[in-house]
């Protein structure tokens, strides 16, 4: 059965209310814009969204936020969307703020079957409150837990028909990590090539991680997001 899906709504059908969803990207760079757009059209709510940012005001995940579909956001930099702060003040959204490296590492740990890890990042700060502190070989660490999710929405540059992925420049960011840490992984790509066209040495995400492939219908350009 082919992993390639033409219909975005169909591709996103697996997402249910209450799900935890990983969303790739650093701001708009490397964000699965087509899939995010599709998600705003689905009638699901109480979502936990794990993403570095929650979009910008009224854009991308920002639309989902304004639709009140997000119960909780887990990320490192919500500042890029002022609506997040407003909703938080009103008690309309829970937020879990993590250092960017911890967000990335927790996703990797989730994908790698680890329970958690001891990191130096955040020790002695307000973000360590409630987290176990521990000295190992004379250095202080805090315990951070792995992140795992129901669904991941990611973006890559090319997929082969099996689902092997390569990325493009700094649009790589969180995407390869999120590909490993969810039960179902949906990728949006610029181009789909035949199996065998990607060099086995250069594949960044092996096909083992990918369930569904869609062609991107929205692309980030110098002029902003445009439909293709």
């Amino acid at each position, binding site marked *: 059965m082919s992993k390639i899906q033409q219909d975005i709504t169909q591709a996103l059908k697996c997402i249910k209310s209450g799900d935890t969803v990983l969303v790739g990207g650093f701001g708009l760079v490397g964000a699965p814009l087509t899939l995010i757009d599709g998600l705003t059209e689905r009638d699901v709510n109480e979502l936990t969204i794990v993403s570095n940012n929650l979009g910008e005001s009224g854009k991308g995940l920002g639309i989902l936020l304004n639709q009140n579909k997000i119960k909780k956001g887990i990320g490192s930099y919500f500042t890029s969307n002022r609506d997040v702060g407003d909703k938080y003040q009103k008690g309309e959204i829970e937020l879990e703020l993590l250092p960017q490296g911890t967000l990335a590492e927790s996703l990797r740990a989730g994908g790698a079957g680890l329970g958690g890890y001891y990191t130096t990042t955040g*020790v002695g700060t307000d973000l360590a409150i409630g987290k176990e502190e521990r000295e190992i070989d004379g250095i202080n660490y805090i315990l951070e837990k792995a992140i795992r999710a129901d669904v991941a929405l990611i973006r890559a540059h090319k997929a082969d028909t099996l689902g092997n992925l390569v990325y493009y420049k700094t649009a790589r960011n969180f995407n390869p990590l999120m590909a490993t840490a969810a039960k179902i992984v949906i990728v949006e790509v610029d181009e789909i090539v035949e199996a065998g066209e990607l060099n086995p040495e250069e594949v960044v995400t092996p096909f083992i991680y990918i369930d569904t492939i869609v062609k991107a219908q929205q692309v980030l350009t110098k002029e902003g997001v445009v439909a293709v």
Partner: protein
Amino acid sequence: MTVQLNKAEMQHAIAARVAQELEGPCIVNLGIGIPTLVAEYMTEDNIYLHTENGLLGVTDVDDEAIDPNLVNAGKLPVGEAVGASFFNSSDSFAMIRGGHVDVAILGALQVDETGVIANWAVPGKNIMGVGGAMDLLVGAKKVFVTMSHTSKDGSSKLLKECTYPITSTRQVDMIFTELAVFKVNAGQLKLVDLMPGATIEEVREKTEAAFTE
């Protein structure tokens, strides 16, 4: 009388002064704001820039070559150096936390007199973003801080104690303002340079933190 610099000139003066402290070969990570300007003043050709969103070998980019998918941690367009490499966010922060980045140059809201900084949150405002600041502070071999010497209301940003939430318990290595350059040795600030036009009296007056001269 001191020549009054405008804000941009002040920022460039600080950036230029920081650049003098960078000696290659080294790997440098530049924060948002004044740190980004440091790149314009680096003279050695074996200084490589790391950006935590996944690129080693950041360069300037000409307007016509801008690629929307090639940006730095401030989401500004950049170019890639000869010998650059791209990697994912966990590999990027593994480099940082693992001690493989030589210098991080960061902005700060406050610095205390032991060299501990606050640069990610303001009490009473929503705590909404931390980004890579905490990772860089624990991981970089040296941390340089750049900031204006005083707040808009004229109060010192070099304090006895930070009133904002700290970013790390780690003490930074150097602090650069439009008035002065400090080194941090064993948890004590030492004034090592006055910026052009600044006087020791002015630095004393505008610095709450204790420092040696």
